[in-house]
């Protein structure tokens, strides 16, 4: 009962934020030089003013700016993201087509980075000061410092071209018409490289955070209490330290899950992954206003969603938030 009110309030705030983002982006994107009509005409290799004017009229770009903005905001409020004249399809359809690929990629990368990061962080903290710890933290630092796209290029080079183990790009084997498990396997094999390269950086982040947090929590009084009970170090680490140490990691992960979508632009480009990151980048080049705005809105919505999920997870871990007397 107590949960409904705040969640509604939160959703309301989220809607306001999204609306503000829509408006700001609208201004931003229209501030960019060029417009979709000119790009489209330009690509045809031969166009004249009449054609560009026709296209502008068709796209509604001949309207005064405030009317365009009004129409857009009105549309967004009715969950209509508009029509992509460039691609000749409703923006929502375009995005929904691409969203699954991005979600699969980012969620897998997120899952990998979080689990591996936490596991390695715990492992390193258990061996703090020993060579194994230095080795792990060293690797984490290197992953952290390596540019994502560079890692991606190298990964394709080694695993796809040289070794031929994994497909180097794409989302699935085109035209193979796999179904069921076979299809899942196929997608998975395509997923490995992009998810790993996208995940490595974040894994490094979570690992360092987990390690630091574990060491910090290990200093706290209740750990001493646990030791005084005669618990073994591994039980203490798992049951007492880890759970408390996870709290800051969860917060950070929640903040960064959204950023993964940003990082996906690079990964999707290098791996020809048909996700919304690439859609955004390509639409930007084409000044396909409605599509860029749509992608921004959807990714912002996902960030907000992630934040809400984070809060819920946080609540699950931390009873102080869950129970309030």
């Amino acid at each position, binding site marked *: 009962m107590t949960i409904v009110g705040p969640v509604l309030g939160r959703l309301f705030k989220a809607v306001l934020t999204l609306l503000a983002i829509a408006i700001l982006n609208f201004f931003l994107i229209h501030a960019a030089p060029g417009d979709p009509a000119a790009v489209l005409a330009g690509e045809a290799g031969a166009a004249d003013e009449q054609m560009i004017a026709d296209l502008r009229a068709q796209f509604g770009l001949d309207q005064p700016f405030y009317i365009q903005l009004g129409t857009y905001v009105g549309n967004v409020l009715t969950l209509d993201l508009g029509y992509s004249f460039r691609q000749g399809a409703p923006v929502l359809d375009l995005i929904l087509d691409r969203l699954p690929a991005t979600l699969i990629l980012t969620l897998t990368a997120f899952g990998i980075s979080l689990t591996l990061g936490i596991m390695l962080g715990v492992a390193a903290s258990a061996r703090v000061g020993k060579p194994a710890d230095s080795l792990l933290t060293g690797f984490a630092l290197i992953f952290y410092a390596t540019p994502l796209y560079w890692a991606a290029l190298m990964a394709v080079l080694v695993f796809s071209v040289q070794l031929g183990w994994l497909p180097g790009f794409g989302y699935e084997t085109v035209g193979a018409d796999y179904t069921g498990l076979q299809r899942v396997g196929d997608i998975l094999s395509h997923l490995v490289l992009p998810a790993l390269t996208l995940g490595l950086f974040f894994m490094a982040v979570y690992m360092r955070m987990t390690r630091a947090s574990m060491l910090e929590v290990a200093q706290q009084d209740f750990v001493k209490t646990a030791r005084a009970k005669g618990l073994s170090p591994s039980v203490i680490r798992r049951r007492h330290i880890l759970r408390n140490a996870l709290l800051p990691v969860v917060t950070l992960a929640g903040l960064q899950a959204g950023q993964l979508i940003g990082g996906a632009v690079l990964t999707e480009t290098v791996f020809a992954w048909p996700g919304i990151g690439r859609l955004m980048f390509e639409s930007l080049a084409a000044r396909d206003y409605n599509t860029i705005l749509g992608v921004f809105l959807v990714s912002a919505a996902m960030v907000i969603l992630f934040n809400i999920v984070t*809060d819920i997870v946080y609540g699950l871990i931390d009873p102080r938030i869950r129970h309030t007397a």
Partner: protein
Amino acid sequence: MTNPVLSIEHLSIKLPDGADRQFAVDDCSYTLDKGEILCVVGESGSGKSMTANALMGLLPEGVSVGAGRAVFEGKNILRQTEAESQDLRGAKIAMIFQEPMTALNPLMRIGDQISEVFEAHKRHTPSERRKRALDLVREVDLPDPEKIIRAYPFQLSGGQRQRAMIAMALALEPQILIADEPTTALDVTTQAQILKLILDLRKKRDMAVIFITHDFGVVAEIADKVLVMRYGKIVERGTTDAVLKTPQHDYTKHLLAAIPSGLVPQNAEVQNSPALEIKALNKVFRTGGGFMKPHREVRAIDNISLSIAKGEVLGLVGESGSGKSTLGRAVVRLVTPDSGQILVGGSDMAALSETELRRARYKVQMVFQDPYASLNPRHKILRALTDGPIAKAVPKEQARARAHELMEIVGLGADAVDRFPHEFSGGQRQRIGIARALAMDPDLIIADEAVSALDVSIQAQVLDLLRDLRSKLNLSILFITHDLRVAAQLCDRIAVMQKGKLVEIGPVSDVFLNPQDDYTKRLLAAVPGGGWGLAEAALT
């Protein structure tokens, strides 16, 4: 003595290089008998906790046992493997700690934390563990046991948490319970309850207790034997009576002398005009709100009126959370009251604008509770002492000269102004805090728990200083404390607060010797170290 449970022989504990001394504990020997309560007393840093930690095998990193043995059940428990220590901990020797707020895992239910002890030692089935945990919760007198074992630590008060800790420690019926300052963080009434609980359990279970404290009141209350430590050495030992009544070592004498006595001064009539008048003051805190958090309301000040005369010291006592600090802070308007008046020298602090307030505050200053948090670590003392006067338009040179002078007055020497706060001890900082308040030439000083964080001997010095200043400068002081003995020593009148209400106010001797309100009576009775009998002696 026959057959001790534990005997410690020539124990030395080595500190890492660069610590303040080489040995935390230096060649200590003593024995502990069955069913005996041994109190270890001594100033902060004397090595009390280290001894206990060594016995548990819980010495912090870098600290190690240098020499000596501790024989328990025929074995030297100081030279065991980690696995052997684990078997011993919780099962044969249990320990409880000072800070109940942080000593429990905040994310785990109380019941689980208790049954975990059984699990660690592979006793009982899970369902039986649960049942036993419930029994234990009952045994330590926690209310509503069924609910408590399902509760999380944050849902319990400090006293309740300490009880939960004790339940955990008792789970496997250990032969020895080590209690490291288990009541220091609690208010007097709760402290009294916990002490009683330990005494009861000792009787029921016949276990030996090592009780670490720096409070001689507590010693008088529960100890069979006393051990006094200083700089890692045992300087005095004996039965409680012997040590308290006929101390042999100078240090013990010094410590005992520094204890605020229960002596209550005679009523000194104060007729001066008021320095501070509080009229019908109210303050309600509303907290919370936000995602998944309901609102909460606390009446911190509930319709309080009182006044302080010029040159008078008014003690404000009451247990933790009763609203003392809020009242003090409202006077200087660090807290803005909801309604009521605060008249300082005629002007109403509660109704001033930002700039008027700045001016008005020159007359009222505050000495803060925490000597560590109340000085900016990045500023030299000189700046702490001159910032205020300069803002008040005192010429720089004059402010500097005054700062030097004040440092002399509080006994730190004029040169000390060029040092940083971290170069001072707690007591010294507290004196700097007083100097800072004085630098503004106030009429009224609010001292919020100004001596609570200090060792008894230093506490005595600071109290002396305050008394001295009061008589020299004709200062009025609102002295906030939860320590009734301290209040009795310094104050002219006492005000007692409970849950935001003023329940009693009057001259010291009246309030202490003839309390009217029930709450005051309870508060007085709870002070460890045996009542106010001494006070009667003083009257005759």
